[in-house]
């Protein structure tokens, strides 16, 4: 147990994180690329078409992973915010700051692919129903975190304020999740659940599962890349960054 704490403590220092993430990134990057390519080729070429929707159902292989990741990335950002507020770990603040733009872009991706899928399926790009509206709110929460940070000059105060905003926004997550059960909606219920077998055949949910894993791995890669750049920026006056510059 002591070892785990020591390891976590070391990981909490920006410099150690920079070193460790540099070693992990090639592997994670390769894994993300492989999962996404296999999943996309499988979903586009080999998965059967939907008996009702035809080939437009292939949008599922990007829309569903993007939507799942949009919510999870908010959860991860909020967890980092909690860690920062409780333990004042600098790296957690960097994590919050760097998760926001990635989360915003993935949420936008979920909304746009959803709209494009909605047109041939529901006959409309957009409806103001609970699922879509609460996902739009999720996008605004991400944008709010970005805007609040850039509006404040004092890094410490900005870190605390964005962390609080990120935590308050967590209320939106159960609303997104249960919106398809609580309100009447055009949106179909969840594709995956932990307790039940998926309603679709294996030739469809397997590539979907691979895409979901690929999106998650991609998120960690993008998150680490952004955090590394931010660490260099914040620590640019330190000796180890100067050494890094001289050696490179």
């Amino acid at each position, binding site marked *: 147990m002591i070892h785990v704490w020591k390891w976590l403590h070391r990981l909490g220092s920006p410099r150690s994180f920079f070193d460790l993430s540099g070693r992990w990134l090639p592997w994670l990057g390769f894994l993300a690329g492989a999962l996404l390519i296999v999943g996309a080729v499988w979903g586009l*070429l080999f998965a059967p*078409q939907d008996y009702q929707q035809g080939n*437009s159902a292939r949008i599922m292989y990007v829309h569903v992973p993007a939507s799942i990741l949009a919510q999870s990335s908010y959860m991860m950002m909020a967890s980092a915010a909690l860690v920062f507020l409780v333990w004042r770990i600098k790296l957690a603040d960097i994590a919050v700051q760097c998760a926001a733009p990635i989360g915003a872009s993935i949420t936008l991706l979920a909304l746009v692919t959803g709209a494009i899928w909605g*047109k*041939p399926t529901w006959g409309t790009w957009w409806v103001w129903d609970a699922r879509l509206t609460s996902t739009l709110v999720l996008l605004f929460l991400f944008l709010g975190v970005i805007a609040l940070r850039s509006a404040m000059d004092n890094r410490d105060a900005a870190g605390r304020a964005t962390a609080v905003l990120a935590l308050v926004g967590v209320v939106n997550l159960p609303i997104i999740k249960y919106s398809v059960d609580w309100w009447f909606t055009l949106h179909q219920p969840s594709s995956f659940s932990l307790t039940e077998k998926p309603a679709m055949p294996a030739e469809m949910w397997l590539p979907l599962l691979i895409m979901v894993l690929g999106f998650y791995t991609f998120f960690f890669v993008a998150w680490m890349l*952004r955090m590394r*750049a931010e660490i*260099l*920026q914040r620590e*640019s006056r330190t000796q180890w960054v100067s050494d890094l510059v001289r050696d490179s």
Partner: protein
Amino acid sequence: MSFNSFAEFLQMGEHGVFVWSCYGITLVVLLVNILRPLQLKSAILRARRQALVQENAREGNCEINQTHGQAHDPLASQGQETP
């Protein structure tokens, strides 16, 4: 394989535009999220390298100045550095 020909694959029934625009947008969003931080990182390192080179040059000047009996003011150089 769900398609008999490449043309059929591109058409996706009548949904080609919808399917391919989704995959295209996804590719762009994923790529931007990877390339942008890499670009940021190299820009930060480049700026830092230039600053270090300037610092070294100034230290070099400082030695020359000292031979002429002029003291180097370290505060002035620090002031110029802050962005």
